[in-house]
């Protein structure tokens, strides 16, 4: 194994890594922001009457009951900020980082589920099934 072969192989590896990195950071995903009553792991989360969701630097979207909107983002990890008013009329602001799995082109972000347990994305990030389209 000469120096040359080493250099060549490593160069190849670097390029492949670069390509893969590009693939990851350049990949486009669409997050479906969902304000519907959902049942996750046997537990039901009621939809909110009115909620404001902001993804990264994009301008925030307002969702009413059974409303759905889409945020198109590139890359995997994103900041989501949800603003809503609870029963006691005090405004609550939740902000979390979410990580979209690489292979998912579309993913559903359920606001109600998120509000209940914002620190476990297995609740509020769910794969997008065509059946749930159109309410």
């Amino acid at each position: 194994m000469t120096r040359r072969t080493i250099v060549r192989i490593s160069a190849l590896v670097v390029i492949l890594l670069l390509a893969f990195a590009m693939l990851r950071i350049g990949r486009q995903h669409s997050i479906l922001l969902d304000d519907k009553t959902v049942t996750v792991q046997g537990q039901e989360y009621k939809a909110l009457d009115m909620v404001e969701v902001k993804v990264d630097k994009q301008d925030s979207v307002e969702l009413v009951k059974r409303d759905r909107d889409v945020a198109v983002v590139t890359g995997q990890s994103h900041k989501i900020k949800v603003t809503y008013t609870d029963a006691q009329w005090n405004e609550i602001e939740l902000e979390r980082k979410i990580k979209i799995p690489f292979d998912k082109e579309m993913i559903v972000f359920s606001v109600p589920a998120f509000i209940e347990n914002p620190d476990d994305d297995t609740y509020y990030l769910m794969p997008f099934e065509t059946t749930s389209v159109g309410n």
Partner: protein
Amino acid sequence: MKITKETFIKLFRNNLVTVMFVIICAFGIPLSGYSANYLIGEIIVRISRNSFLILSLLIPIMAGMGLNFGMTLGAMAGEIALIFVTDWSVVGIPAMVLACILSVPFSIILGTICGRILNKAKGREMVTSYIIGFFMNGVYQLFVLYAMGPIIPIKNKALVLPRGYGIRNTVNLIGIRRSLDDLIKVRISGVSVPVATFLVIAVACVFIVWFRKTKLGQDMRAVGQDLEVSSAAGIKVENTRVVSIVLSTVLAGFGMVLYLQNMGTLNTYNSHTQIGMFSIAAILVGGASVNKASIPNVFLGVILFHLMFIVSPMAGKNLIGQAQLGEYFRVFVSYGVITLSLVLYEMRKKREANDSAQLLETEQEGYNND
């Protein structure tokens, strides 16, 4: 006195095409009635769009293989790469980088094939590479129109033809549209300059300048001058020629990616067909010939050729009230230019052959006098 006249005539003769174009533009610009700002803006766009592609022609010329009509192969490689990238819904600069990386293997394969074939057709490289362009276009269609879908999976339905396989006639590159051009954008008196793109082009120029200084570059220049002498000196002639074509193809691949990011849409089955012709016409207009070309030729060429291209429809309209005429005119000129420069090149070769005879004749006169 006589000498200066001679040299002047030679100069004129050797730059006939360029001079012609300056004249055409000189007439065309006022006729078109475009504002200087508009024209400058357009030209800047054209330079950023085309010059990289044209740069890819320099290396084969250096290696004495003439105008590489086979650069279309590179264009195809670039397009295939972009199709994949779009299918994977990658966007922005990353998409472009990825496309470039992806295009390389295709370019290398196609380039090697092309080079190998050209080695079998020494002395008529140009017409052969030109036919290779057509031939590979067939292979490309086979690949994109039939293999993509059944054999190579394409997820993105927006790309695939309604019938369920094969790529649509136009692919929307909205994801990467102008992503490089707009990366660093400077507006100078209402003219926006895509600095980033120009930087990339500059890098390409630097590469070519540096490449000329390498051993390989030297070998290519040697091979370009005389196959016999070079191989006698132990230079791997055939290999060198293949490498030159491969390099040109790879560059053309990158060039195509750059070109299409500016265009924003890919005409799957047409984008590459014209590219070769326009690029070659441009470099010839810039004062290059079949056996010598330089970086200035490239840029002068882009400017003059595309000036003509922009103004002629409008000029035609204002001249005879038919824009269509201008359209045809520029097509005619593009082909005419190539024809003319090929003819001039062949004739120059002949002239040089005759010089020695004249020498002898004068010498003989010498004998007769004494």
